[in-house]
């Protein structure tokens, strides 16, 4: 029934590049890829020579039609799959991917003529990846919906997809460990007060997407509810380490 049914695909790595000191951008050519909505993910399956298999989910940073799929993968120390993807995977390698997956944490352009609510994106660390896809899809569609991103990140060097974010308006950064010189706010974690001052207020009934590590997502989602946002307007995606 889905417009883009999920299935297993053979993918070939066509580019790899450092994204941050611990993360890498991986561009895949997937000839059978049916395209994907902004925010969806895929499962990567690696098979060792002895037949052992490991599988993990990664958000897709690209969106729309086309058979080029972009991932942003942060290396999890002691992880089973991400160290291979970040350090060892090379151009020309083939991996198996299952997707596109997930109809919950996606954004699609509103119907023509509708007056959509503002969209507030909130990212913790590499949780920005699916939100970058949403920003890109929003821009590509020429959509007039107000979009804002609050991005919590350790340090300026850890920002993912900086060029894409620089091309978007309404991006606010919260640096948790190290801020750029001259930054008005000392480094620190996102708090309920941060959300109150830097995100679209509940009176404007924004649709909110939150993605990041589980503790980040749960703290932010709870504060959003405390600030008066209905849970039905908040969509969340958590990731863990491995």
């Amino acid at each position, binding site marked *: 029934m889905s417009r883009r049914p999920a299935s297993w695909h053979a993918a070939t790595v066509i580019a790899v590049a450092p994204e941050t000191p611990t993360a890498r951008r991986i561009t895949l050519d997937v000839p059978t890829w049916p395209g994907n*909505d902004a925010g969806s993910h895929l499962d990567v399956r690696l098979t060792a020579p002895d037949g052992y298999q490991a*599988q993990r989910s990664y958000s897709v940073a690209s969106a729309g039609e086309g058979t080029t799929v972009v991932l942003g993968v942060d290396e999890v120390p002691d992880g089973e799959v991400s160290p291979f993807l970040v350090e060892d995977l090379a151009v020309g390698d083939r991996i198996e991917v299952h997707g596109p997956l997930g*109809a919950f944490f996606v954004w699609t352009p509103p119907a023509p003529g509708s007056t959509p609510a503002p969209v507030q994106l909130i990212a913790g660390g590499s949780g920005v990846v699916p939100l970058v896809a949403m920003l890109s899809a929003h821009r590509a569609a020429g959509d007039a919906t107000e979009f804002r991103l609050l991005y919590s990140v350790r340090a300026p060097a850890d920002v993912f997809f900086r060029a894409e974010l620089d091309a978007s308006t309404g991006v606010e950064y919260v640096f948790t460990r190290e801020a750029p010189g001259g930054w008005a706010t000392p480094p620190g974690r996102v708090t309920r007060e941060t959300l109150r001052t830097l995100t679209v207020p509940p009176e404007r009934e924004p649709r909110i997407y939150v993605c990041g590590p589980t503790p980040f997502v749960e703290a932010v989602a709870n504060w959003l509810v405390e600030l008066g946002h209905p849970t039905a307007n908040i969509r969340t995606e958590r990731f863990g*380490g491995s």
Partner: protein
Amino acid sequence: MQHLDGNVLAGPLAGLFAFDVTTASARCAGCGELAMLAQAMVYADAMGYVARCASCDAVLATVVVESERTWISLQGLSALEVPVLREDEAPARTL
């Protein structure tokens, strides 16, 4: 163990349902809470996945994926609410 959420079940369950079941509303048999499966707490390990109710922590479903078969228990779900889609209609995918 750090939990994830029901979004991670989209892949393991993709071949078992005719739609993305993570967007189905699931009723917890324990407390009656109705929430999309994507919003459940999911504990993942090498054996598979255990989905728990985000409100009362009761086990909703268990999924074990092996190379030859997938084993699924929906022991804690008293109902699944699934939007009806016409063939020519894209599924409801956005807020």
